[in-house]
């Protein structure tokens, strides 16, 4: 650690990596009274060299290793990798596989957002808002299990399509779950999002104005909360996102409250997308048969999707062999981290957990 010289009336506090609020991550804050005057993020505690490891595996073998980076968001982190690989291999996946990818991706977004909401609840001291979303998250995990076969890491969107087909019983089950969850979201609004103490704690806290958000290059819900209607699903539609109706939320408040509300609305929109997908999904094969040692054509490809935390991109360079020559992963968490010092400096110590988690920073994903 870099030893810092601080003034006498200031106190340097290290938050993490064993702090309950930080996860596998540390940042050092300097406080003067109750105000944070400096913040130095120190990521890299869980760096595993995922980019380098892909160079020693063939295209299919990398999948389980890559999805470990982001356990709440496994489908969305694999999908851009598969899209870029398919572009290099020159294959077009069947439409049913694309719809299944959309269903799994949106289901994953709900799972990730519910996890986020639970932690945001406990960071604000609201224990019920910790228990409820994590309990409801389980029924969406069960939905994912019906298609993917595993609970968390189902390595679903592999190059060439998807791994399994959807069972017949999925559609009635999913519609039932969505009806239940719509009611639960209203409960959440009643107990948490409209609570006067919640509004007091989040309105006007950690404001990231529109211009700064664009300048810093943040992505995903953080950017949308700063009044920028930016979404990869709208801007560069992949799969069949141009065929379904959904709204991209954006808020003028640009604060922690806006970031919380964006997550809430996105869960509703995800359910809306899955409902439409279940109506439109055609019959057919779900996978193009690839050889275990599939060769990709020499060249470069870039795959980009809207993951739950923002734009997730994979840049793959191939030399024509069975293994990628170089893989560069662009993760939303790391791009949102740059806003953390800007938001924390000048705010209260007590607002630190709420601001930190409103960026939805996932250390494992950021460190790769």
């Amino acid at each position, binding site marked *: 650690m870099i030893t810092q010289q601080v003034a006498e009336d200031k106190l340097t506090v290290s938050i993490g990596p064993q702090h309950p609020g930080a996860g596998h991550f540390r940042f050092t804050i300097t406080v003067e009274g109750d105000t944070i005057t400096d913040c130095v993020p120190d990521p890299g505690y869980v760096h595993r060299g995922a980019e380098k490891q892909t160079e020693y595996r063939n295209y299919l073998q990398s999948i389980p290793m890559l999805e470990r980076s982001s356990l709440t968001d496994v489908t969305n982190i694999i999908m851009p990798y598969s899209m870029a690989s398919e572009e290099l291999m020159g294959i077009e996946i069947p439409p049913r596989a694309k719809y299944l990818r959309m269903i799994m991706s949106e289901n994953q977004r709900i799972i990730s957002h519910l996890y986020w909401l639970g932690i945001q*609840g406990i960071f604000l001291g609201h224990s019920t808002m910790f228990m409820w979303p994590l309990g409801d998250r389980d029924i969406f995990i069960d939905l994912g299990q019906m298609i993917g076969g595993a609970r968390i890491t189902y390595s679903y969107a592999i190059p060439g399509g998807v791994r399994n087909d959807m069972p017949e019983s999925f559609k009635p089950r999913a519609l039932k779950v969505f009806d239940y969850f719509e009611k639960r979201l209203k409960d959440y609004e009643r107990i948490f999002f409209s609570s006067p103490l*919640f509004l007091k704690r989040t309105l006007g806290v950690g404001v990231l104005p529109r211009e700064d958000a664009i300048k810093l290059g943040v992505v995903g819900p953080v950017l949308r909360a700063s009044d920028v209607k930016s979404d990869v699903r709208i801007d560069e539609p992949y799969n069949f996102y141009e065929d379904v109706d959904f709204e991209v939320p954006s808020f003028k408040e640009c604060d922690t409250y806006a970031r919380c509300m964006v997550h809430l609305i996105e869960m509703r929109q995800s359910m809306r997308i899955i409902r439409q997908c279940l109506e439109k999904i055609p019959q057919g094969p779900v996978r193009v048969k690839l050889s275990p040692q599939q060769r990709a054509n020499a060249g470069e490809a870039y795959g980009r999707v809207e993951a739950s935390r923002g734009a997730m991109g994979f840049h793959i360079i191939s030399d024509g062999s069975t293994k990628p020559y170089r893989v560069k992963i662009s993760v939303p968490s790391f791009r949102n981290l740059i806003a953390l010092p800007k938001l924390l400096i000048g705010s209260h110590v007590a607002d630190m957990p709420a601001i930190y988690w409103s960026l939805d920073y996932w250390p494992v994903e950021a460190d790769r």
Partner: protein
Amino acid sequence: MPEIVNFEQFVRRILEILFWVLIILPMIALPVFYLIYVLQVEIQCGFSLLNCSHQIDWSLALYMFDPSKMNPLDPNSYISQLGLGTNSVLFKVSTFPGLTFAAILSSFVIWYERKLLAKMQYRIGPLYAGRVEGWLQSFADLFKLLFKEIVIPARADTLFFMAVPFAMMALSGALLAVIPVGPTTFIASSAYSLLIALAILSFFPIVTLLAGWASNNKFSFIGGIRALYQMISYEIPLILSVVGIIILSGGSLNFVDIVNSQSRIWFIGPMILGAIVFYVTAMAEVERIPFDIPEADSELVAGWLTEYTSMNFGVINLAVYIKLYALSSLFTLLFLGGWQGPAPVPGVVWFMIKTVIMLTIFIIPRGFNPRVRIDQLISFGWVWLIGIAFANIFIAVFLRAAGLL
């Protein structure tokens, strides 16, 4: 825990456990003896170890094995004359309404709180300890804590660090000593009981600051400072909210007089504003959600409790819950008519029913409130609560002057 347990370590563990078991009783008793001998608080009980020891007829020892002579409820029995009957100070201090009763009630409050919170969150809560709904969970936790190692941080101030659990327990015990649970069931009674209770309450911030400072941990220190701010800011509305009661009860500070003056109407009716202020400030005094700012677990690991382990932590936690029980009892005495209630049920039972209802009302906000920020808390206390408390005093003065109460 070390792998090899030799005899010396074994003996040390046993001694540590004995140490903690033995320490709790004197910690309750000392403040009471202090009240009796130094403050000369009048003891209102018929027969006791302290003033009648010379009257013991030792020939009664012959009847030791006669069951009728061993009845602690009979003031003339042998055991009562030894000063061990239910009317003795020793019994009152150690058993009812003193330490044992308060400690057991507090452990059940912990279990009750966990169970209630679990129901609110669609969970099950404690389930296994004690077979029926996990009712022995607190005791299981107690035994777990007893067998844990006491860790003192390397650069901590050992003396003050270890003094904090005793001080917390002593203060909570002292608070219990002045609170009556029935018209004749109390440990100590004075013309200034209410003032003594409020004075003891104002000692707590000093202890929490000491805990934060002695731990030599930045999180503990910030937590201690926050506790100091919070408790001192909420001390003033707490005292002001009680002034209306004193006016209506004819200027008496004795709890028995205050309860007797509520025979016509409970003070929660005319003094509803004062009751609200008392409730909110009491929540802040015991650091419960939404006012658990000094222990905010997401920002300051556990606040001023961060470095406390083992039975150190257990004793502090127990003391905090005893304080919660004492504040609920205070609310019952001041606003809910104390032990008053329909005749067939004894007054003590009425008192307990009301206290448990108050405890529930103290616990429930934890289920649906986030934590407030320290600056919001303090501005709320100084601007709103003090204003409401003054309005309450004016209402009391008006009612008194108009002769309505």
